[in-house]
């Protein structure tokens, strides 16, 4: 069964994707999205696509979750305006 690692990678990515889609809380979802990015990067490496794995690693694990977290922080700040800017996110 030569394809076994690929199949395991597929199942991992599918499980992570399902978890990311079904997690309702955006902060939680951002963390699961970065796990999905990691699982996809692993799967792409196993599928012999190192070029795609590299860009997925940078985009999926860092860029997208970070932007989601920063958006959540901006949107959450709405109700309590007087909270001082502390210069560093809890996610930072």
């Amino acid at each position: 069964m030569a394809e076994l690692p690929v199949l395991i990678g597929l199942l991992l990515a599918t499980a992570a994707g399902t978890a990311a889609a079904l997690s309702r809380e955006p902060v939680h979802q951002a963390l699961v999205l970065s796990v999905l990015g990691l699982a996809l990067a692993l799967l792409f490496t196993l599928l012999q696509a190192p070029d795609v794995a590299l860009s997925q690693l940078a985009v999926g694990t860092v860029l997208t979750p970070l932007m989601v977290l920063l958006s959540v922080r901006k949107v959450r700040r709405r109700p309590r305006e007087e909270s001082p800017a502390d210069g560093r996110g809890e996610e930072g």
Partner: protein
Amino acid sequence: MNGRRTERGRIRRRERPAQPPYAQRPLFHRETRTVNLLPFFCAGWLFLVGCYALATSRNLIHAVGALAVCQSSTYVLLLAVGYRSGGTAPVFSDVPPGARPVVDPVVQALTLTDVVVGATVTALLLALVVQIAKRHGTVDPDELRELRG
């Protein structure tokens, strides 16, 4: 249609004499087939579960995340189409050309640009969500619909 099918069948048979052409094979017939269908099934599942989350989302930021899951299904599908058993990466800096079979580089190139461009489109969507939150004070699509009246 019928003629094309026999045409395809002839080509397939010449390559792999043991197997019948795809067009005449039933879905989910043998165990080996199910394993070979798994990548396409996973891609379809990721797309559908992303769509479900997108449609039932109560938060626009969450909806953008669900869209990212939908995007990832296209990457899985494209790379699964291009995969080749026993193939290596289509890079010839270490492997002399022709020494080993390589996987399909065309789908990899498509996926690669898609990953990066998809991230910037996600950024644009998140920017719009931030702007909606500023102007309307909510990111719940149902509340936004009520605001519109």
